[in-house]
């Protein structure tokens, strides 16, 4: 098996969870890379929607570095502005939201606004919701990418930016007035999570080869649902790594990033 980096594993896993003949609303970075990989492999009829206003572009100028990048508008089928693509999403045209964040809780709610829970004087201020809050509300299924660390998989968010299942009650999303069905997958380099249908709590689906479910639980601050049939995560093949490194992100803008705070 080839050596791969954490970012490559996340991108590859992200690609695996995307189905063909769907529309994925992508954020900058790993979501774009995952969707490009899926298009080049098992999902040639997967299309991307970008929040600055483009639907189904052809990324022949290379990977967009921004969701408003000229490259993300290149040869699109439809190119308008933010209102148009978010309204398509409200209407039900976007199957997947593909977002990141700073913290996630057991019900798949995500924080990307502040750290420290004083809104007027936070300890850290992040950029804010951006598209994520609207994507998590109204794309049909939400996929979240997150680094697997205790300080990120938390019991309580400092700020709930992107809606998941809220407090876990069956009508939380309905009372919130949102349209999508909610969290679907959470992707890290060491584990893939889904959500339990009964309780809406985060459930371990797969772990990286060589790791045990208890290793994953140790990196998570809340109690995971760990079913008896946890699988091994598939690892990227040589060909997958070639696509990621040589075709999709040859400059290493995202895949060669050094992890730091």
């Amino acid at each position, binding site marked *: 098996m080839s050596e791969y980096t954490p970012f490559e594993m996340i991108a590859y896993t992200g690609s695996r969870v995307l189905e063909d003949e769907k529309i994925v609303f992508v954020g900058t970075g790993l979501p774009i890379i995952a969707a490009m990989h899926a298009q080049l492999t098992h999902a040639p009829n997967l299309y991307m929607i970008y929040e600055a206003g483009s639907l189904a572009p052809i990324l022949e100028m290379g990977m967009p570095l921004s969701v408003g990048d*000229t490259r993300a508008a290149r040869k699109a089928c439809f190119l308008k502005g933010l209102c148009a693509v978010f309204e398509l999403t409200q209407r039900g045209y976007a199957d997947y939201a593909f977002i990141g964040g700073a913290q996630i809780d057991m019900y798949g709610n995500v924080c990307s606004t502040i750290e420290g829970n004083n809104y007027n004087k936070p300890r850290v201020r992040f*950029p*804010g919701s951006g*598209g*994520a*809050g609207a994507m998590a509300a109204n794309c049909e299924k939400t996929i979240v990418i997150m680094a697997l660390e205790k300080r990120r998989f938390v019991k309580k968010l400092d700020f709930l930016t992107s809606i998941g299942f809220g407090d876990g009650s069956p009508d939380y999303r309905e009372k*919130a007035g949102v349209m999508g069905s909610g969290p679907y997958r959470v992707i890290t380099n060491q584990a893939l999570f889904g959500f339990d249908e009964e309780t809406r709590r985060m459930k371990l689906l797969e772990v990286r080869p060589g790791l045990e479910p208890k290793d994953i639980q140790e990196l998570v601050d809340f109690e995971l649902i760990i079913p008896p049939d946890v699988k091994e995560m598939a690892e990227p093949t040589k060909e997958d790594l070639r696509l990621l490194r040589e075709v999709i992100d040859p400059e290493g803008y995202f895949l060669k990033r050094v992890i730091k705070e």
Partner: protein
Amino acid sequence: MLSSVSSKIKNVSNLQYEEKKFEFWGPTPDEARKIMVNKSHALKDKRTTLKEAVAKHIKDGINLGIGGFVNTRVPVAIIHEIIRKGVRDLTLSFQSNSICPELLAGAMILDPDRVSIKRVELSWWGYEIIGIAPLLRYLATNGMIEMDDYTNYGMSVRFKAAAMGIPFIPVRDHGGTDMELVNRGMMIQCPFTGRNVYLVPACHPDVGIVHVTAADMYGNARIFGALCTCPEIAVASTYTIMTTEKIIPTETIRAYPNLTEIPYPAVDALIEQPYGGYPGACYGNYWFDMDHLRMFRSICDEFRKTGNKDALKKYYDEYIFGCETFDDFLEKVGYKTLKKLKNLDGGQPIIV
């Protein structure tokens, strides 16, 4: 803002915040309407200079609506001139932006008597791949600016509601998140379906600033690439200052009127300013200058980490105060850089 109807956010929220009493952070819908009907709607030549436009429209205490999206078609030339002129107690409104609010924030840090930001209604402030916005982080964590958070759709559709002449618009996001508690939207029960639905108030900037691909001398504008929220901001604002890469003949506009994204009555001042979005990108003309954005961002980050303003001051002295016009700035950037960015755009097809 919590109304009698709400989601179950209170069951989840861990947030400390102060309840805001509702007010519009710019002209009310009635005020905005009145200003619009009292203007001349003649087809007249709107061409002017950045100096004149900014001197005429940018006043203390205004709500400044900023066009573009992150690093795309951001109205940097107008921002430079606003900083040269100076303006205090700004309310900023935008969906996602990078260098425009950072430049204003840096000017505030260097001299709050010249430029100051009082509050910001926004969705996102950062540089995407290049990193977080250091000066947003500095101002917010020090409690120096008031924030009002929405999603990118929320801010965009607030401009759209204003552009539609309606006071609010129902949306399917914000509910069930802490934005429901802190921002000025409100949950109601839909009178038709009986279900909860979130309302966001219209956002009318006093002055909107946008950069477009091409416009005729009256301000009829074409935009290629992502429209971002520029048409909505221009129409929503009580006054709009527009820079354009190129002035084109009115006969061209009239030959293909479907291509006009911003109609002339929405524009008060028009300036032909090639590279007016630099170091941001303008589809069909130039890509963004990652090196310049990185350089400015690292200067800002150095200030955030050390408190030392020297490098920041040097940037402003060199690139803003040391320039009479935006062309002077572009001359310092240099032909070779601009040529490279033009090539990186790849000649996207535009109709001008």
